[in-house]
C-alpha cells in the first residue's frame, strides 16, 4: 500500500512551485498533535505567496502557538494544478506543518480578506472533505470559523460557517478556543456548543439568526435563541504594546508578495476617508510605543534575517516622531544592511522627505493614491489633499531623484461627473508638462484606475455601485484620453470583477446558493484575472434566481435595515449618516453629459 506521504511526494514533483505546499520554513512551528489539547488550522483562501504576506496570519500564529497547550498550522488554497492532482489521487487537503488532513483539526479558521476569495473557501472545505454547510456537519467535524474584514458582512457566507469572530482576534481567540474545547469535553452536542459560544464577545453565530423579509425587503434579524446577542460588537485590542506581536514569523522560501519583516506602527486610521472600510472597522487609532517598536524590530531581524523591515499601518507617515523612530532603527540595523521601508505614502512634503531618507539606490518609482483628480471630488470622499500639494510633493520627489510615479485613482465614486473622469487624464497631462520643466530625465507615470465598491460600515454603504455599462463608458473616456497622452501608462480594473465584489460586499444570505453554484461550475481564484470567468457567475445567478444587479446597484435608504446592521464595528449608524450627508452637501445632481471638448 502506498501511504499518503508517498503519494504527496510524487505529486510535489508534478506541480508548479512545490514549495507552496511543503512547509518546513524557518520559524515554522511544529508541535506533536498528541501533545496539545487544541489543534487549529489557519486557512487562507488564496495562494501561499498571497497568504504568507498577510500580517494577520503572523499575529494569530504567534497568539495561538505561544500557548503550550495549543497549536496552529497553516493551509493555503492549492493552485489549480495541485487541486487537479489532489482530486485525481483522492488526497485530502493538508496543513503545511504536519501535512495532516484538515479534517483532523479541531478548528479551521478562514481569513476573509476580500470577497473574490469566497469560492476558494468553499473549494478548500470540499478538498478537505468537510461538508460545506454547517447543518450537515457532525460532532467530529472541525469547527469552521471566519474572521478578517469580510466578517463584518459575512451574510453571503452564513450557511457555510459555524461562527465568525468580529474584529481583532489576537487577544480573545485563545479564550474562545479554550471555551470550545471545554464545552466539547463536557459532552455537549455540536449545536449546543456553537450556541453557547455565541455569548463570547465578538462571536457571531449566523445559524442562530433568521433573516426576516417583508416581501423582497430585508427587515431585520430574528433570533432563534435567547442567548445570542441582538447586536454583535467587534473585539478590539486595547494596548498594542502588550498584545501578541509576531517576533519570529515563518520565513518563506518562495518569494511572496511582501517578502520582508513587518512592524505595525499603529492600528486604525485617523484620516476617515469615506470609502475606506479599514478606516472604520479598525477604529480607534492605537499606537505602539517607540521603545516597543525599536526593541521588537531588532528581535524580528535577529529571528528572520530579513534584509528589509517594513513600517506598516493604514497611514504610516501619521505616526508621531516617525523620523526619530527611523533614525533609531537605522542605527540598530545598518550594520546588518537592513533597510526600512514605508508601504504607503501621503502626498505631502514630509512623506517625500522620509521616502528620500529611507531610499538608497536606484529611485525607480513612488506610489501614491490621490483617488480622485478634482479637489471637489476628493472633498466628497474626504481625501483632503489639494492640487498644489500634489504638484509640490511630486516636484520634491523629482528633485530628490525619483524616476517615476504610480498613481491610483477610482472611478464611480459618489457624486462623480464626467469632468472628474476626464480630469484624471488632464491632471496627468499637467503633471507630465510640469515634470518636463523640472527634470532633465524622462519621468514615467503609471496610472491605475479601479472602480469604487461601496463597503459596509462606511458612510458610502447606502450608495449604489455604478452600473457596468456606465463603468465601461467612463473607462472608454479614459482609454481615449490616455491614448492621446504619450508617456503615461494606463491600466484599469475589470468592471465585472468590481461588480461581483460589490454584490458580495453588500449581499445577504440569498447569495449563498449562487456562490455555491458558481463554485460547483468551477469558479476559483475570482480575484485573478486569468481565472475569473464572469459567464459562469452569470449562469450561477440565473440558475439560483439571484439578480446581482439588485445588490450592487441598489441605493439603500437610511431607514432601511441593512444586512449587516446587527454587526457593529463600534461606529454609530447616525454618525455614518451624518458623514454621508456631509459628503454630498452642496453637490450638484448627477447626469451631466460627457463633453468631448474637455479632452
Amino acid at each position: 500500500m502506498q501511504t499518503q506521504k508517498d503519494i504527496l511526494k510524487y505529486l510535489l514533483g508534478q506541480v508548479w512551485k512545490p514549495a507552496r505546499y511543503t512547509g518546513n520554513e524557518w520559524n515554522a512551528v511544529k508541535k506533536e498533535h498528541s501533545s496539545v489539547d487544541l489543534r487549529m488550522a489557519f486557512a487562507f483562501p488564496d495562494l501561499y505567496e498571497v497568504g504568507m504576506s498577510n500580517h494577520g496570519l503572523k499575529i494569530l500564529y504567534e497568539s495561538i502557538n505561544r500557548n503550550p497547550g495549543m497549536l496552529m498550522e497553516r493551509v493555503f488554497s492549492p493552485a489549480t494544478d495541485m487541486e487537479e492532482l489532489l482530486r485525481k489521487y483522492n488526497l485530502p487537503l493538508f496543513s503545511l506543518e504536519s501535512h495532516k488532513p484538515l479534517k483532523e483539526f479541531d478548528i479551521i479558521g478562514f481569513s476573509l480578506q476580500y470577497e473574490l476569495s469566497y469560492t476558494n473557501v468553499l473549494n478548500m472545505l470540499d478538498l478537505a472533505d468537510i461538508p460545506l454547510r454547517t447543518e450537515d456537519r457532525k460532532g467530529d467535524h472541525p469547527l469552521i470559523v471566519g474572521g478578517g474584514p469580510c466578517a463584518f458582512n459575512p451574510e453571503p457566507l452564513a450557511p457555510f460557517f459555524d461562527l465568525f469572530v468580529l474584529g481583532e482576534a489576537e487577544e480573545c481567540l485563545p479564550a474562545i478556543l479554550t471555551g470550545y474545547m471545554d464545552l466539547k469535553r463536557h459532552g455537549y452536542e455540536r449545536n449546543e456548543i456553537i450556541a453557547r459560544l455565541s455569548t463570547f464577545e465578538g462571536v457571531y453565530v449566523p445559524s442562530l439568526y433568521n433573516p426576516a423579509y417583508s416581501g423582497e425587503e430585508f427587515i431585520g434579524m430574528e433570533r432563534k435563541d435567547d442567548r445570542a446577542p441582538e447586536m454583535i460588537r467587534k473585539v478590539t485590542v486595547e494596548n498594542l504594546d502588550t498584545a501578541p506581536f509576531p517576533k519570529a514569523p515563518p520565513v518563506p522560501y518562495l518569494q511572496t508578495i511582501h517578502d520582508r519583516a513587518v512592524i505595525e506602527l499603529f492600528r486604525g486610521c485617523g484620516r476617515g476617508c469615506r470609502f475606506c472600510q479599514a478606516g472604520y472597522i479598525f477604529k480607534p487609532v492605537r499606537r505602539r510605543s517607540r521603545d516597543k517598536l525599536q526593541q521588537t524590530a531588532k528581535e524580528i531581524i535577529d529571528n528572520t534575517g530579513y534584509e528589509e523591515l517594513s513600517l506598516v499601518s493604514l497611514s504610516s507617515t501619521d505616526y508621531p516622531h516617525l523620523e526619530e523612530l527611523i533614525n533609531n532603527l537605522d542605527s540598530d540595523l545598518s550594520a546588518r544592511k537592513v533597510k526600512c521601508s514605508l508601504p504607503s505614502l501621503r502626498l505631502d512634503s514630509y512623506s517625500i522627505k522620509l521616502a528620500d531618507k529611507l531610499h538608497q539606490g536606484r529611485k525607480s518609482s513612488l506610489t501614491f493614491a490621490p483617488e480622485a483628480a478634482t479637489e471637489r471630488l476628493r472633498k466628497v470622499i474626504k481625501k483632503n489633499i489639494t492640487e498644489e500639494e500634489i504638484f509640490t510633493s511630486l516636484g520634491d520627489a523629482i528633485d530628490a531623484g525619483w524616476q517615476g510615479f504610480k498613481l491610483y485613482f477610482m472611478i464611480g465614486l459618489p457624486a462623480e461627473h464626467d469632468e472628474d473622469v476626464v480630469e484624471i487624464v488632464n491632471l496627468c497631462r499637467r503633471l507630465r508638462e510640469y515634470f518636463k520643466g523640472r527634470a532633465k530625465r524622462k519621468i514615467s507615470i503609471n496610472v491605475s484606475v479601479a472602480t469604487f465598491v461601496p463597503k459596509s460600515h462606511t458612510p458610502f454603504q447606502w450608495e449604489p455601485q455604478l452600473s457596468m455599462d456606465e463603468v465601461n463608458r467612463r473607462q472608454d473616456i479614459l482609454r481615449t484620453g490616455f491614448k492621446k497622452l504619450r508617456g503615461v501608462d494606463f491600466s484599469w480594473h475589470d468592471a465585472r470583477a468590481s461588480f461581483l465584489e460589490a454584490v458580495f460586499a453588500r449581499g445577504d444570505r440569498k447569495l449563498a446558493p449562487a456562490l455555491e453554484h458558481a463554485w460547483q461550475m468551477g469558479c476559483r481564484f475570482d480575484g485573478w484575472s486569468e481565472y475569473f470567468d464572469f459567464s459562469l457567475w452569470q449562469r450561477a445567478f440565473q440558475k439560483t434566481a439571484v439578480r446581482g444587479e439588485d445588490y450592487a446597484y441598489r441605493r439603500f435608504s437610511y431607514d432601511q435595515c441593512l444586512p449587516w446592521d446587527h454587526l457593529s464595528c463600534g461606529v454609530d449608524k447616525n454618525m455614518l449618516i451624518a458623514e454621508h450627508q456631509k459628503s454630498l452637501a452642496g453637490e450638484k445632481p448627477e447626469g451631466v453629459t460627457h463633453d468631448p471638448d474637455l479632452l
Partner: protein
Amino acid sequence: MTRICFNYARKEQIKYISHLDMMRLFQRALRRSGLPLAYSEGFSPHPRFNLAAPLPVDVTADDELGEVFFKEEIAPEEFILKLKKQLPEGLEIKRAQAVDKQAPALPSLVSAALYQARLVTVSPQLEVNIEAYRSALERLLDKEEILAPRSSRKGKRKTNVNVRPYINEAYFNGDEHEDQVVLKLLLQTGSRGGVSPVFVLEQLDFELGEKRPSHVNWNLHRVRLYRDCNGSLKPLSEGMCI
C-alpha cells in the same frame, strides 16, 4: 577579510526550492548567525556570497559548494558552528575551509556535474520497461543535434542551441538497485555552456513517445560538481583550496 568555502548537502525536505530561493535562504541564515559578513559595495548592498552552481527545483545533492566573505577573521569551525544553527532541516553544512581571497569566484570554476536519475512510480505495482528506456537513450545519444531553446539576457530574442555536445556521458546502471532504473548523467555546466538534467530527461521522455509510462517521475540527484584540470575533470570539492 576572510573567504570561506564550504561544502553542503541538500536533502529531500528542502529540494523544492529554486536557485534564487536558495541564495535568499543562505543570506538570511547568515544574517541571523550574527557572523561579521562582508557586503557588496553600492546602493543595495548584499552579503558577498556565492553558490557554485544553480541546483534545479526538485533535485537533491550531496556535494555542493558555496563561498562567503567576512570582514573579520573567522575560523572555519566557528563558521560551521554558527551557520549550522540557522539552517533548516535538510540543509547540512559538512566542511568549511578558508581560501585565498584572490582566487577566482567559485561559480567560474565549475565545468561539469554528475547526476543520478531514478525512476519512481506512484504505485509500486507498476512495471517499468527498462529496455524501452535503454533504446530511447541510445536513439537520443545517436543524434548529432539536440536543440534547446535559449533566450537572450533580456529575454527578447529566442534562439536554439545544440546541447548534444554538453552531454558527456549518459548510461543506465542496473546493478546497484535491481528494482529501480538508475540513469547516470555527466553533463557540462557553467559559463562555457551547458545543459540542464531536467531538459535531458524531458528529451528522453519525448524519445520514448507512447512507451513512456504514465505515473512515473524522475527523482534527480546531483552527486558532485567538477572543475576542469588541464582537460580532465576533478571533483570541485577536492580542489576547493586552490
